């Protein structure tokens, strides 16, 4: 958590190719995500953002190339080695994916019960602290179905943080949320990144969110099946050579100003 060098690569994507039913979706991607940064994957619908994320978290195996987390290849690992890698990160799914049959507190407690030998009162306290941290201290005993979309996403972040991973993957952080709730989630991500030194990998296409939270972004393109831009979002908006990239940033930025 402390003392990491700024340029330590926590995730490495090397010559990575993704394919569905023999059809290539992403081709020969190369990039690194550094410890402590908020890294955003963006692009239009169908460009492979979520596909890339699902490969990074080990749900799918790459058609070619490698993705490593802390130097370990998640697709190649099995059994205990795979569990060891899985413990290093947490994931917030697009819908939150909180277990509907459990209260919010039980959702957050589950990883602690399964993977630590903490006594029950400790698990309860830790789960409450995590929920408090994401602003859900008062609704710990509610069922997920009784929560709003934004609250469910916060709850999912708390569950992803249960085992204090160094790395959090957030799929569509602000999708389907109102601008105020979305901005609150952005602030939550920033404060977690700052206070807990968590590395965030966020999939989104919401420009206000990107400009608020992202240290670096990569932009994927459906036609090129790869990265068309990488860097700081403000730099890309103002100085990118690619007109498609400038258009993406400026069009949405102008609609943001208009709204």
């Amino acid at each position: 958590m402390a003392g990491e060098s700024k340029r330590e690569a926590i995730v490495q994507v090397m010559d990575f190719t993704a394919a569905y039913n023999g059809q290539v979706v992403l081709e020969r991607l190369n990039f690194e995500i550094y410890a402590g940064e908020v890294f955003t994957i963006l692009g239009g619908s169908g460009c492979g953002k979520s596909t890339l994320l699902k490969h990074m978290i080990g749900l799918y195996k790459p058609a070619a190339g490698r993705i490593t987390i802390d130097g370990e290849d998640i697709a190649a690992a099995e059994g205990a080695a795979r569990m060891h890698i899985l413990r290093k990160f947490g994931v917030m799914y697009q819908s939150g994916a909180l277990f509907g049959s459990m209260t919010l507190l039980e959702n957050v407690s589950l990883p602690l019960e399964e993977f630590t030998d903490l006594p029950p009162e400790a698990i309860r306290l830790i789960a409450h602290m995590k929920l408090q941290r994401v602003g859900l201290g008062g609704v710990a005993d509610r069922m997920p179905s009784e929560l709003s979309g934004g609250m469910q996403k916060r709850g999912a972040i708390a569950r992803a943080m249960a085992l204090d991973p160094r790395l959090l993957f957030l799929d569509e952080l602000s999708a389907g949320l109102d601008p105020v709730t979305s901005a609150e989630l952005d602030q939550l991500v920033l404060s977690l990144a700052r206070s807990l030194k968590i590395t965030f990998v966020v999939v989104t296409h919401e420009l206000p969110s990107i400009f608020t939270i992202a240290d670096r972004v990569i932009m994927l393109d459906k036609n090129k099946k790869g990265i068309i831009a990488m860097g700081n979002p403000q730099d890309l908006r103002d100085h990118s050579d690619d007109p498609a990239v400038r258009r993406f940033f400026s069009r949405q930025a102008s609609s943001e100003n208009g709204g």
Partner: protein
Amino acid sequence: MTASASPINLRIQESGDRVLTLAIEGRLDSANTGKIWRKATKMVAGAANVMLDASKIDYCDGSGIALLVQLRNQRHKAGGVFEIRGLRPEFQQLLEDWDPGDLTRFTDQTSRRAGFAEEVGKGVVEVWQDARTLVIFVGELSGALVHAAFHPRSVRWRDAMRVAEVAGVNALPIVALVSFLMGLIMAFQAAIPLRQFGAEIFVANLIALSMLRELGPLMTAIILAGRSGSAFAAELGTMKVREEIDALKTMGLDPVRFLVVTRVVAAVFMTPLLTVFANLLGLMGGSVVMLSLGFPLITYFHQIQYAVTYGSLLGGLLKAFVFGILVAAIGCLRGLQTETGATAVGESTTSAVVSGIILIAITDGIFSVVYYYLGV
């Protein structure tokens, strides 16, 4: 899973009269904290004032912070002093960020259990509300069915045919198997006592009357409840969870007319047909036993003709018709009543089968009484 490269150590540095000095060394993370939690809380509980030397904590995450918070709260509650020394600034920052001040109110919380009277009251209200919903639904469904009868083109016949195939045609093998075996077993069981009186031939009467009047419609309806009533509930329940029902409503389409009528119509036509097959297969099952007892088929056939009337057959089919409506309607109702969440669809499915079988049993009883007085 909880193994760690650098272990954790908790030790007593100094145990004076007034102050206990503890030291934690190593990684205080989610994998390690559990190993010292109980020991640490126990030690702190027994001391008046506690000084914690945290200078040798290499790493501390949320779980570690939780332990420090727990120890501090524990001591403060008892009115003693708790001091942490040498905690690295970044961990100190974490301790402040987690804002533990408000947490104490959560730790002692226990959920209140409802009393017996409250449970009974809630149960009664639930039954009353369920009955009320049932009546409203029957009204809506009757209206929709009458509308469909006068405007047959408004019924989505393609959907109805699909449901008829799934609920009717595809159910034929299981209905056939169960009925055949039931006929066979009943005949076999009846033949043994009847033989003592030389009355084996009356096995035919028993099989024919019980299958046509009671067991044919009853077994078919129960199989329908298990197979299709549950499927209707699951299908509509999933649609409810995915907001498809809401989408229908906002499009101005009535879910009862659009989804329920097709299913009820399909079930209503399929149940009597399946019952005819069930009756036939039941009689065939009986015939196997009769043949083995040495009676030719023609004798068995004549005996059946002599025993049953058209009244028995049609009375049974009328029952099947009503059972079909009940099973399909309750399946659809439970589907439409589905609440949100992953378990909700499962609950609706179970409820559809249970309610379906209860309704079948009650209605069968009513039919028996009515038929008795009508002399059917």
